[in-house]
């Protein structure tokens, strides 16, 4: 009895180690016009404070032009700048994977948007789900600026929507060299300037503006060499 268990155990662990895996981290670093910043502190040299920055990344994968793709299973990650570890994703990839691009979706796919109550990062308790019109908020940024004519100078951009023509999810593909730690910056300053908060300071539902702002956001991710 005992020996058969031992055999079973070694067989399983052998099978597991045959598919040997490598762990890499991908960290996302928001910057404002090239400079690091903190939540709830006025950004140096800019009349602006960011109070919330949260977004979904999904379907993370690595690919190379000649070999196939590797895609993470059940790949949904809520990144939250307010959580210390909230901006780093750990990936378990095949040891010998050769890839030259990192791919992900900024946002949540439409199937998941119509599939009811989810768990983990997709649990609606994280505040990334609209109550009055079903759908995930793919990307949320809030803050204030004196330029902003809204209530208490606040701006709120909640980008989402999964139905055509206002499907806000964006595909992102970045050239990379695989290493243990990958860093990706994205410039929130460029995003805020692209909308001009003195005119547009509130996007709270699926619409054309949400899609164009999501496209802008998706274009800002850059690998740190």
């Amino acid at each position, binding site marked *: 009895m005992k020996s058969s268990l031992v055999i079973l155990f070694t067989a399983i662990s052998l099978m597991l180690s045959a598919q040997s895996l490598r762990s890499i981290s991908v960290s996302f670093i928001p910057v404002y016009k090239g400079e690091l910043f903190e939540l709830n502190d006025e950004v140096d040299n800019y009349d602006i404070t960011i109070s919330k920055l949260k977004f979904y990344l999904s379907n993370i994968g690595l690919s190379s032009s000649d070999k196939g793709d590797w895609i993470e299973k059940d790949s949904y990650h809520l990144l939250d700048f307010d959580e210390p570890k909230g901006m780093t994703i750990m990936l378990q990839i095949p040891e010998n994977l050769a890839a030259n691009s990192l791919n992900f979706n900024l946002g949540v796919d439409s199937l998941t948007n119509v599939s009811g*109550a989810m768990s983990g990062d997709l649990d609606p308790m994280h505040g990334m789900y*609209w109550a009055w019109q079903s759908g995930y908020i793919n990307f949320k940024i809030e803050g204030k600026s004196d330029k902003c004519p809204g209530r208490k100078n606040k701006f709120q951009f909640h980008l989402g929507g999964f139905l055509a023509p206002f499907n806000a999810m964006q595909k992102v593909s970045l050239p990379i060299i695989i290493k243990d730690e990958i860093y990706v910056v994205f410039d929130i300053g460029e995003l805020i300037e692209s909308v001009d908060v003195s005119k547009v300071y509130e996007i709270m539902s699926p619409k054309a503006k949400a899609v164009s702002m999501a496209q802008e956001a998706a274009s800002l991710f850059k690998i740190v060499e």
Partner: protein
Amino acid sequence: MIKWLVSLLGLFVVLVGFLLTETIDLEYPNHFPEPVYDFSNNKLTEQKVKLGKALFYDPILSLDGSISCASCHSPYNAFAHTDHDLSHGIDDKIGIRNAPPLFNLAWQNLFMWDGAINHLDMQALAPITSPSEMGDSLLNVISKLESSNKYRTLFDEAFGDSTITGQRLLLSISQFQLTLVSGNSKYDKIREGLDTFSTQEKKGYDIFIASCSSCHSEPLFTNGDFASNGLEIDSTLMDYGRGSITKIKSDSLLFKIPSLRNLAYTKPYMHDGRFEKLREVLNHYTDDVVNYGRENSSSRLEKNLKLSNNDKSDILSFLKTLNDQDFVFNKKHRER
């Protein structure tokens, strides 16, 4: 030897646990189609239904602890709201719409009069949370539940541990609502061969099939789609229904086609509760159909229906056969 006993005991515990949370099948009449709700992701169990029911009747779900789901969806009204004034609702939007009855939700794909909500599980978020602080207040509800012994026990019984998540909360509320099946009216008994229409009911049924069933189709008495039945837009509300959700022009002024079951308990009628009596509803269909000349005419009633006063009386007599007393008076659905 002892090891064997221990593993046997372990197996027993697992088995008992399995039996205790045995899944139950949704009961519904043979003449109903298959439900559209995907039960494989949320298998019904006694314990989850019980938890969902407790939540449905508990004002702990509202931000200020003042109203429960049942305040607007009363079991005595087939889970509709007969009080027209909804101004104490939680969102501005709620004040302009009539609370629909809740039954046969397992056969419904889209929820709310405009179909804004695409899954039963997600519906409860709307009343639970205020729109601007949504996530935070769901967390707040969860923390209120976490500090309640009653709910920790109920969640434990339902899910095997007392962790409370948004998903678990929503799935349980769905479970209770899914059990609200109305399928035991006189009409249903006739379908099962257990009863027969009176002469007048039969006349009404035939007229109904000819004039109404393209939208209010058997056996649920809705085809689940959105349509315009020619109501004049209320200029104080300017509610464009489905169009304001899809932002598609041809959806403007379309509303969910409601089931016509249990009408005796669910007045007032229409999305804004504009009619108090079924006679008024029928008079609308024969006298006041407005044609706004919009696109998508196949979903729109474009002109008045031709029905005599006798026809109307016959239809009303048929509609009465859709009232399901067994459902409305079912103690199982009540708070206790």
